[in-house]
């Protein structure tokens, strides 16, 4: 039994002007092969205008346990949303 080739995460940007979006992962020995494999596996129907491949080991992600620390501070800042402000209904286009 051989050892797994390194894992790469694949991100694709579609033609419609949206950001790159994570679509899954593939195995490859190097960046060039990762690119080719990502193309074959994730863009068989013209889904992509651009591909990013990133070694999975290089991705730093937040931990579920840090959720409160990270996201609670923005929870009580309702004044960051437009609905917080009252504008008389006769004022148009706002």
């Amino acid at each position, binding site marked *: 039994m*051989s050892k797994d080739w390194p894992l790469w995460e694949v991100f694709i940007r579609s033609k419609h002007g949206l950001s790159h979006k994570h679509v*899954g992962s593939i*195995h490859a020995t190097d960046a060039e092969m990762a690119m080719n494999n990502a193309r074959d596996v994730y863009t068989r129907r013209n889904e992509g205008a651009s591909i990013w491949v990133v070694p999975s080991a290089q991705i730093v992600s937040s931990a*579920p346990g840090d959720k409160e620390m990270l996201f609670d501070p923005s929870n009580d800042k309702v004044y960051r949303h437009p609905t917080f402000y009252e504008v008389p209904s006769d004022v148009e286009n706002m």
Partner: protein
Amino acid sequence: MYSQFVDTGAQGKSTGQDASEQERAFQARIDEGISIEPKDWMPEKYRKTLVRQISQHAHSEIVGMLPEGNWITRAPSLRRKLILLAKVQDEAGHGLYLYSAAETLGASRDELLDALHEGRAKYSSIFNYPTLTWADIGAIGWLVDGAAIMNQVPLCRCSYGPYARAMVRVCKEESFHQRQGYELLLEMVNGTDDQKAMAQDALNRWWWPSLMMFGPADGDSIHTQQSMAWKIKRHTNDELRQRFIDQTVPQAHYLGLEIPDPDLRWNEETGHYDIGEINWDEFWNVVNGNGPCNRERLAARRKAYEDGAWVREAAQAYADKQQQRRAAA
């Protein structure tokens, strides 16, 4: 289905009382419809069950290429050859999306493949039947991919995020698989008498195995309850099987083909088709390794894997060398 035997490690489902607080919170999230993501806490049984289910599904996609691959070189026209190539390539893709989803749960790709090659892992019973004529390619697209779609569409809403997202991709690609099969048969039934007879013969051989794809009857399916509570199974085997029958019988009539079941009839009262008895002995036989092609399928997988060993090693050696050179420079 594509994963017919997913042991949840529990009979029935675990009840509230013996569940830990963490487990109760986990179940509450699922009940609320919040998706579970790779780094979230999950019960060990949930993780193991999912690895089993997703890898069985992946293996089915991969082994499923063999019966159809058998006809690529003999497709009757360039158009049909292109279609079949694209379909088989899609199935390889489906297998890879699914292995990738299983890996988010900590499974190793090589270990999953080893389990398949050593006969420790299961894949769908349907792929242990032979493809004897060109009409079988039509029957597989229409019936086998049709049954797969029936099973996969609800899984797009399953509780585990990476699996659900893989299913969305798969389902988008699956619909051409079924349509090309039906179109192929439509051409054959409108051809010569021999061609029509070939289409009927294919339906005769693939009908019952397709119904068996949905797995054992609900009464014999001990893990269904837990899987449904975890939302990694959204409908019972019998529910999906019945939907498939109700959808497929009229399609067979349109082709002018006869379903090989003398007991098949429309039931006014239930609004469903009733069918005859499924041959469960045949089903268990195939599942336990004694179907017409079990040995051949595994041998073909193993050979493909072993024949590719030098390529995998060479690619790794090349990458290592490049890296050393970069480090030295």
